[in-house]
């Protein structure tokens, strides 16, 4: 394999990987950051390829990525993870158009977008992801959250609960707020 793959471009290699993965006619394809190292035009082709193959072979695709654009481009359902936990889950339209979790909201706002509303400054999420060993008590996003509620968010971990079209793990939407002392 090595003599051949060295002469392939990044896009061709990724295609070869996909072909290898598909050779056993899987029911499900897990693609872990499949386009991260690729140029935009190549990325677009690979994403199109994955979408086409998904139709053709009638298989499920689990796409792991950090790029919100890529998600919007190919996914039907989205799960947003923060520090090892799913904080929001739903179909792609509700998550992108009506994000509920403050983390999802901040994430979507902090990406510059082409042709979007021109803002002088990007609304950035303050701070950084804590060290896994220094996980904050309660909701792990609370240290960076704009809507942190002292006495609530640091007491317990929010569960993923149904909110309209999607599920979200945040006390802002919790009807049992009172229960959390």
């Amino acid at each position, binding site marked *: 394999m090595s003599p051949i793959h060295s002469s392939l471009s990044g896009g061709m290699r990724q295609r070869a990987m996909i072909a290898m993965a598909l050779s056993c006619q899987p029911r499900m394809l897990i693609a872990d950051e499949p386009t991260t190292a690729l140029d935009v035009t190549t990325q677009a082709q690979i994403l199109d390829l994955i979408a086409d193959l998904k139709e053709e072979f009638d298989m499920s695709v689990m796409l792991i990525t950090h790029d919100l654009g890529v998600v919007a481009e190919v996914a039907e359902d989205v799960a947003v993870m923060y520090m090892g936990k799913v904080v929001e889950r739903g179909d792609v339209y509700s998550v992108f158009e009506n994000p509920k979790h403050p983390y999802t909201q901040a994430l979507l706002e902090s990406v510059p977008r082409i042709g979007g509303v021109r803002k002088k400054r990007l609304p950035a999420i303050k*701070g*950084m*992801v804590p*060290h896994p060993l*220094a996980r904050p008590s309660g909701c792990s996003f609370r*240290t960076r959250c704009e809507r942190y509620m002292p006495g609530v968010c640091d007491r317990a971990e929010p569960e993923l609960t149904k909110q309209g079209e999607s599920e979200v793990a945040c006390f802002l939407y919790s009807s049992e707020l009172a229960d959390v002392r």
Partner: protein
Amino acid sequence: MTQASTLPLADDPAEHSPVVLGPWALVWRKFMRHRLAVISGVIIILIYLIAAFAEFVAPADISKTSVRHTFAPPQMMHLFAPGDDGSTVFLPHVKGLKTTIDKEARRRTFEIDDTKIIPLGFFVHGFEYKLFGLIDTDLHLFGAKNPRDTFYLFGADRLGRDIFSRIVVGTRISMSIGLVGVAMSLVIGVLLGGISGYFGGWLDGLIQRFIEFIRSVPTIPLWMGLAAAIPLDWPPLRTYFVVTLIVSMIGWTSLAREVRGKFLSLRNEDFIIAARLDGLSHGEVILKHMVPSFSSHIIASLTLAVPLMILAETSLSFLGIGLQPPIVSWGTLLKEAQNIRSIAQAPWLLIAPGTVIVIAVLAFNFLGDGLRDAADPNAH
């Protein structure tokens, strides 16, 4: 997101200051975890101490011959002896030897005489010597309490000389050849490899062709040719120097290649470019950024090159074309064990220096391996 491996950040209010070690401290800590390497390091330090204080450590004068002790066997050292009242007391000693002369075979045979005890002691007075060639003394680390007693921990050779003492004194030559040889290859290798890697271009091409040439030539016959050309009547010091030079020619090419490779990969590292943009001169970039970046690797490679040189000296001297008697080195000692008849009669001629060589070589290998692991930022 993929920020998982970050330590608590400066602007994080919840920060608890982590212990931050410098890169050298990290290397040291990783090395200390490598137990075999640490032990080997201690052994090597011990060997060099013995080399430095050889006459003090050696109980017998290495040039003192004794016809009555030709091929005398090793005498084991015992720490305890039965005391007068039947109890066991601490008394380091060796058992004496009983000599019988086999007239037919015309040789002596020895037997350990259990009844005769030669007591040993620490810091006893023995033969006179000059410590470091300066201080007159006759003090020895250990020896027979009665200066007239002789004993042979590792046996005696054809002329009845003490092999233990000869090995101790030979340590000086054999171990220093490794060090001096490595120092020589270091200078040549780093100089040529550095020039080659940092400046590149035609200079690099020329040096690389030269190294390729040297490497494509079989080394052993060439050293043999060179070593055989050393006149036998040269003074020992000059012979020693030339043999070291020949031996050091083994190591420098691979070292030069390694240095060049490091320079080549580092030259395009962003932090090297950044240092240039900070206004540092070429020399400053090399000294401040490049050399520290690979010095730990170089140290490891050097450590691994030492045993090769020790073995090369041993081989050449063994063949009779390296160091010559009366110079005492591990190689010249082994030369005594060249034919099977003398080994059959006195196996210690082979076993004693052989074991010492293997221990030294192994220790260097383990140490070098440990250093290499510790220096490798990717290894865990």
